[in-house]
């Protein structure tokens, strides 16, 4: 826990209310958990939407994240901010979901020999428009996942490679590819 977080948690009123909300949620209080849900659902949904590129799937994933959070919230010890803890959990749920899908597995992980300019077989970016958010959602799956984790969520290539079980070079290549496709989309 950083010094800043210690100070933050020591603040009166709101931080005490948040701590109490967490404690009650850990004891199984659904109302308290709903407070946490509504406070963080936008952040969780944003990661899910950008990572999977589909609103229906993003909604399912968001529910998965909070169901899992409900299951394990008792293990939250306050050693980091709850939002940081939830963020890490969210990414893990998303990646677990991706890994469990064999079809996606093949698309995401079978790319070690992929050249940085290789867009062969990509048709999903054909409809990219000028809107950056939509352009990200329309990126090819593997490029999108790496791009979101690196450029939006701030993970390093080593962490991404570890989470996705790919080579660091592959992560860099996919990031390069994603950025190139986005630049092309924004040029149109």
């Amino acid at each position, binding site marked *: 826990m950083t010094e800043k977080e210690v100070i933050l948690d020591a603040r009166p009123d709101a931080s005490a209310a948040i701590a109490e909300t967490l404690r009650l949620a850990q004891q199984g209080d659904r109302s308290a958990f709903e407070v946490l849900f509504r406070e963080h659902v936008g952040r969780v949904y944003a990661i899910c939407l950008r990572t999977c590129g589909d609103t229906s799937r993003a909604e399912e994933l968001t529910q998965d994240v909070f169901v899992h959070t409900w299951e394990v919230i008792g293990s939250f010890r306050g050693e980091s901010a709850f939002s940081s803890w939830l963020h890490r*959990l969210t990414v893990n749920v998303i990646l677990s979901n991706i890994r469990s899908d064999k079809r996606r597995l093949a698309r995401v992980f079978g790319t070690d020999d992929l050249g940085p300019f290789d867009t062969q077989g990509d048709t999903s970016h054909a409809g990219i428009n000028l809107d950056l958010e939509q352009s990200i959602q329309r990126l090819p799956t593997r490029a999108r996942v790496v791009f979101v984790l690196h450029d939006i969520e701030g993970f390093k290539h080593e962490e991404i490679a570890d989470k996705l079980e790919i080579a660091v070079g592959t992560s860099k290549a996919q990031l390069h590819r994603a950025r190139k496709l986005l630049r092309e989309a924004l040029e149109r």
Partner: protein
Amino acid sequence: MNCTETQQYLSEYVDGELSFTQRQRIELHLKRCIECQRELSMLRSLLSEVALLPTSIAPVHDLWESTARRLGDQKNIPPGNPFAVPQQRDHTQDEPAHHSLRRYGWIKSITSLAAVLIIGFGAFWLTRDSSSPGWQVARVQGSPEIASTRFTDAGHLHIGETLETDATSRARINVGVIGNVDVEPSSRVQLLQAKTTDHRLVLHRGTIHAKIWAPPRLFFVETPSATAVDLGCEYTLSVDDHGASILRVNTGWVAMEFGGHESIVPAGAMCITYSGFGPGTPYREDASVQLRAALQKFDFEHGGAGSLTTVLSEARKDDSITLWHLLMRVGAEDRPRVYDRLTTLVSPPEFVTREGILQGNREMLEAWQSHLDLGQNKWWQFWN
């Protein structure tokens, strides 16, 4: 290095992941290749846009009900690493049965009823703002307008809308549930953000009086020359027709921020900002006229050493907040003078050394600041 190679490595180049030699080769090519310069510029532009993407997106549907239904199907908390996501869930048990509930038992549950009362405010505070599209406004006097439309007794200021008062009207904005803002005559304010973690107004011109009882850094007022960041306080902020602003803090602290520069203003002090200059050095409202004039020259008129001499000679113990800011604002050649003068007014803590301060040691600067007897809010310095 040719264009293909250069553009292949541009992504890693902007991320700072290339070796010194690789960087040199790319920079050598960039100097003579307009096309690759353009590629680099576009890449940086893209990353700038990405950095501005919102961290939160509201789902189209309310997902709580569907999520809540699934909570009832869960079993106990699985042991071990909480981040180890189970691939399959057991849906055979209906009882949520959190282990912590079982561990604490009835007594703990009964005592938690008291906590429910405490959480009531917190829950209300956390949920109300996030679902509200704006803030309530009450007419205090005259005929204030929201979005160019007069309202009688009460109105609603939505995100993006502007509240304006003429020379004879006043209004009060309820800032969610964390405070209120009185809008004085001849003022124009705009609501930018009404989230739980970000309550944000723009003061285009005029005067507001803000009273905030929330934790620090939840309420912001942007002006053309700086952003006022609430650190738990009550203050008055005015903006003139040229975008310059004057901040007066009544209680607590306010930070004025612009372009990486920051002034921390305690109760009883004020701070002037000008467009293009950012926040000036804060000073006590009861500081001498000579000190204030010299500080004005130092901050905004390239007053230099002469102005600094006047500030130092005029400074009292109560003006230590001004000298403390100056430690970080003067050049290395003048810093010893400021250090020596501040030492005569407020002794630094034991471990703070002259050498450390002159070298800009942040830990020592913060430690000394805490000795200035400016109030009890020690936490503010960690919020930079």
